């Protein structure tokens, strides 16, 4: 990888609890280069959204940063406060799952967009309105002149998602953080929004970090993938290889559980359920649900290590990592 644009290193977060903190993100690291796209997948409670929020400097109250850093273009970023906002303002932007909640209901879409123009980008009122219309056009909203006067509730779900994307792009960011932006949408609209993201990435050279629980969606958009379970990265690597040949039992379980239109009779659920934060099993937190688990798994703190045979040593191919003692058993013979 070229010099990473965005780098998250050893990030650890915990929930404030009366009897000591509960770790929800545990030593998470990933890098995204310019124009690259990284997917983060995992179930609810895996810590994927909190990781993204920490990166954006938008951690909810009650979540503490225990350690780690976020670096953007070589500059370390603060996690909260005025500095956090000013450092990210022009570089990082985020889109959310619920577009109705993310847009202000009492202002028109055009007004919200032009505010960014005049307050952040230093444009005049007239220029910023023109810029707002231009942005709506960029995200594929037809009749942008007219739509700019619409309030969020007057737009359909797909249209609102586009408007939110326009708002995120208003500061001309270099990295776009996406938190399940298509989950609430119909399949046909989801396909359009994914296509739009791919186009924007191509045209604007954007880097993407895309959080989702849907492997099929991530596969369409991201070349690199990180799989999270109970706040830890359990596997990472190039999407294509990782999904074709998962080298962590959890990734394999997730793939097997996914309902796929082409392979609809195969779906097999992962036995058991996700442990609660603060009550994680010892050793590898996945071991109680894992068919490969041995006694060793319950006592060993398994670290993410390079895997995948001889090609892993080759610096030309991006490396794969897995946090499993038994990953060799998953390699297809």
């Amino acid at each position: 990888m070229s010099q990473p644009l965005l780098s998250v290193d050893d990030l650890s977060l915990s929930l404030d609890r009366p009897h000591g903190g509960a770790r929800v993100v545990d030593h998470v690291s990933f890098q995204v280069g310019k124009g690259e796209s990284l997917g983060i997948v995992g179930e609810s409670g895996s810590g994927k959204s909190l990781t993204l929020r920490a990166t954006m400097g938008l951690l909810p109250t009650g979540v503490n940063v225990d350690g780690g850093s976020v670096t953007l273009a070589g500059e370390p970023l603060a996690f909260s406060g005025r500095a956090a906002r000013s450092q990210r303002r022009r570089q990082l932007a985020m889109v959310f799952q619920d577009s109705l909640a993310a847009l202000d209901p009492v202002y028109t879409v055009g007004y919200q967009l032009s505010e960014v123009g005049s307050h952040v980008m230093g444009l005049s009122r007239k220029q910023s309105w023109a810029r707002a219309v231009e942005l709506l056009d960029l995200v594929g909203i037809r009749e942008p002149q007219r739509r700019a006067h619409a309030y969020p509730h007057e737009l359909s779900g797909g249209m609102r998602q586009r408007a939110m994307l326009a708002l995120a792009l208003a500061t001309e960011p270099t990295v776009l953080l996406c938190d399940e932006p298509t989950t609430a949408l119909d399949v046909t609209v989801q396909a359009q929004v994914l296509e739009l993201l791919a186009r924007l990435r191509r045209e604007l050279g954007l880097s993407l970090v895309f959080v989702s629980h849907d492997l099929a969606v991530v596969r369409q958009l991201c070349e690199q993938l990180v799989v999270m379970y109970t706040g830890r990265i359990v596997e990472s690597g190039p999407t294509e290889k990782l999904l074709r040949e998962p080298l962590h039992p959890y990734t394999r379980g997730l793939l097997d559980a996914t309902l796929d239109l082409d392979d609809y009779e195969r779906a097999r659920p992962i036995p058991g359920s996700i442990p609660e934060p603060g009550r994680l099993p010892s050793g590898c937190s996945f071991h109680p649900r894992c068919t490969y688990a041995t006694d060793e798994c319950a006592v060993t703190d398994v670290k993410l290590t390079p895997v995948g045979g001889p090609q892993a040593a080759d610096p030309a191919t991006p490396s794969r990592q897995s946090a499993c003692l038994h990953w060799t058993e998953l390699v297809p013979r």
Partner: protein
Amino acid sequence: MSSALTVSDVHVTFQRRGHEPVVAVDGVSLSLPPSGSLGLVGESGSGKSTVARVIAGIQVPTAGEVRLDGELLAPRRTKAQHRAVQLVFQDPYSSLNPRRTVRSVLTELLAVHDLARGAAAAKRCAELMELVGLPEAALGRRPTAFSGGQRQRLAIARALAVDPTVIVADEPVSALDVSIQATILELFARLRDELGVSLLLISHNLAVVRQLCDQVAVMYHGQIVEIGERDQIFSAPQHEYTRTLLDAVPRLGQTAATNPGGEL
């Protein structure tokens, strides 16, 4: 083939003051055999949930009728008719009363419908837990103590408590994590096969419908544009809209490299 449930030419029009009336359902007919399963797919606003509400008797149709085993289900239903068609909703977080224990919800339901009281009710509650794969201890807890998947099991137990002929499930797995969607679908399939319950599954997720249903109906703008056997709909869709819907589904076999819309 005899049908458990028949829906004939149902229309629903919503009148709005100062606006044109909205035609939500425009002449929908379908039938569901005993222990059969029909998937109703379509986008938001296609009218699929309104059809479900008409079948469950919580929306009065503007025209058309719903029959169960030949008997007309009038807009105002008897208790027995209400029992026959039960609903399972999308969001197991808002469809269960957080202040009541599972036992109190189920016991009241059994009493209201004169199905069981006292020891018989307690026995029935335990049976229901076993049926949906929850421990008997779950009866003493409140819904907040359960995960999304477990809550959906509770919602299913509540629907089963009154021995329904038909279960209408409106997006029953779309609020759940991928890893547990399959377990809930498995439960529905088992109930259909073991108890002979007919299942009407409403979903925008074609993979869910493909997994569970032997028949599929595709709705668009209030009308059924295509209806047929599962394999026929998925392998040889006849209607343009069905094809659009199928093409839009992201697939595991499709990558950033092979997806034409997402070329890099």
